């Protein structure tokens, strides 16, 4: 497949995911549970004929946006019956496979009018996310190592007086590759909720190939080997007080070119 058409396929998938998340985000109201809103995102994506997933929709309310829970991420992060209270922060995150191409988009918002203190904290989180997004283009060059890129993001968040949350994700990833699709696992059926077989099998295969043949490492993570190359879903996640916020967008690092497919924070996917 030509490189340009692969990037166009990922961009189209990302547009579909963004549209679904932003459409549902507008409908999120106090009283909604995480499960109800995840159901609405899945319904929205079913209209776009999504049948396969890297991961099904996630929604986190209030203090859950910080991932401060005890126990394993995979089970604690699943959508719960937690009810959204007025003025609470939320995060929506989904990774559908659209026409064989994976997407991964996340949005951070508020339900109704937040308390002034929370509004200030959330503005600080979004300002830092915006800054990290624009700076990453300079940090994630083909000459920077995986470890350097992650360290710079963590240092930037720390310097802003905020907490780094993305290191609490499985494998402590800042990002994961979107290369190598469609593949043998892309049409695997949905099993329950959360991470799905296309995600697990693709990254397990990526790790095995990395060790056997020296193929590109599938994750962007602190202490990760080599240098970033290709398309990544990048998801810096930071926190302040009881709040957390993140974005998830696709970053292209190809040779000397580094650019976001959607340059603005939660903005339009330009491709």
């Amino acid at each position, binding site marked *: 497949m030509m490189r340009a058409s692969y990037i166009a396929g990922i961009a189209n998938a990302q547009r579909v995911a963004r549209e679904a998340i932003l459409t549902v985000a507008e409908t999120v109201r106090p009283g909604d549970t995480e499960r109800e809103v995840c159901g609405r995102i899945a319904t929205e994506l079913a209209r776009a004929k999504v049948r396969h997933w890297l991961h099904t929709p996630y929604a986190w309310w209030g203090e859950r946006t910080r991932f401060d829970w005890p126990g*394993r*991420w*995979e*089970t604690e992060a*699943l959508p719960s019956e937690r009810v959204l209270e007025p003025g609470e922060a939320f995060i929506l995150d989904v990774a559908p496979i659209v026409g064989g191409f994976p997407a991964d988009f996340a949005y951070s918002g508020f339900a109704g009018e937040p308390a002034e203190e929370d509004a200030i904290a959330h503005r600080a989180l979004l300002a830092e996310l915006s800054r990290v997004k624009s700076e990453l283009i300079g940090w994630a060059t*083909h*000459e920077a*190592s995986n470890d350097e890129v992650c360290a710079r993001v963590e240092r930037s968040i720390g310097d802003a007086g905020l907490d780094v949350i993305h290191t609490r994700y*499985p*494998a402590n990833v800042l990002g994961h590759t979107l290369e190598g699709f469609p593949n043998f696992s892309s049409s695997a059926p949905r*099993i*329950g*909720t*959360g*991470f799905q077989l296309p995600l*697990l099998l693709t*990254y*397990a295969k990526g*790790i095995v190939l*990395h*060790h056997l043949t*020296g193929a590109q*490492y599938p994750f962007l993570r602190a*202490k*990760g*080997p*080599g*240098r970033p*190359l290709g398309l990544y879903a990048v998801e810096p996640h930071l926190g302040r007080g009881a709040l957390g916020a993140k974005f998830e967008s696709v970053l292209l690092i190809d040779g000397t070119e580094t650019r976001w497919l959607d340059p603005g924070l939660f903005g339009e996917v330009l491709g």
Partner: protein
Amino acid sequence: MSEIERARRKRSPFGEDLCIVWSGVVGFLLQCVRSWITLAERRDDS
């Protein structure tokens, strides 16, 4: 071989990646169990 090429070929620690894969498998199985329990609870509720 250039410094960039050497860095690109550097391998991740094998033990660490084995833990990631193993943790992914365990996490996925636990997630399946949790999903089925949730589904069963919702069927009971309805």
